[in-house]
């Protein structure tokens, strides 16, 4: 059952990623990417990461991509395709990418990590995540807060500049 679910989620994620790269209009790419994000959230659920499943759907697919789609609606975007004119020669671009995937898979596959069936009882619960985060990653947590505040101030500061007279 787990293998069946994994292959389903993996196929949806792959089709979403291919749609992101291959569609002509960025809005279609955005919707395809949202499908990919929800599939990856399903994969997190298969990995016993319940909190990450929730956070991925609420934050990533529900806030970041919605923000991107809002900004996309403001502009009058012309359709642009991946290649100006598709030639068979362009398929040779996939060969180095495939070789790189194979090399990385060989390097990382040599470790032979396995999924063990005995996990701690609260693996992936939000309480365990919170304990681990605040015990071992406290400085990173505070730095992320500082980063978010800095980004907020920077965005407001950049987009609200006073009108300067430009020499046209």
């Amino acid at each position, binding site marked *: 059952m787990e293998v069946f679910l994994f292959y389903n989620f993996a196929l949806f994620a792959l089709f979403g990623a291919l749609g*992101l*790269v291959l569609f002509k209009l960025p809005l279609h790419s955005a919707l395809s990417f949202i499908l990919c994000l929800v599939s990856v959230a399903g994969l997190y659920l298969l990995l016993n990461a319940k909190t990450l499943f929730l956070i991925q759907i609420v934050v990533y697919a529900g806030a970041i991509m919605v923000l991107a789609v809002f900004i996309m609606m403001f*502009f009058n975007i012309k359709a*642009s395709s991946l290649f100006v004119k598709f030639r068979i020669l362009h398929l040779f671009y996939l060969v180095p*990418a495939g070789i790189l995937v194979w090399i990385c898979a060989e390097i990382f596959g040599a470790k032979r990590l396995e999924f063990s069936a005995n996990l701690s009882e609260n*693996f*992936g619960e939000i309480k365990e995540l919170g304990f681990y985060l605040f015990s071992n990653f406290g400085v990173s947590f505070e730095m*992320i807060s500082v980063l978010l505040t800095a*980004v907020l101030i920077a965005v407001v500061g950049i987009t609200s500049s006073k009108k300067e007279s430009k020499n046209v």
Partner: protein
Amino acid sequence: MFDNYMLLALILLFIGLVGVALRKNIFTIFMCVELMLNAVALIFASIARAQGSMEGQVIVLLIIALAAAEAAFGLALIVLMHKEKQSLDIEDFNELRTEQC
């Protein structure tokens, strides 16, 4: 099973890399960068499951927060860039490439 997750994450990473290199619209390039971040987060989550410790999942949480901050800032910059050039084609932003220094 861990190998399956690793292979899927690597394929997603390289699809995102091909998208960043070959697409011309700024929004699509930005979303391909987010796809690469997601692929790396999937690798961390699967390593956390293999080791039985929560460290990988905490790192994924930090990656998601970082992606949110970067997305907000990147989209503001895209809006400003459009205001400068009225174009969303990455070929039009080539000041660093032409010899005008």
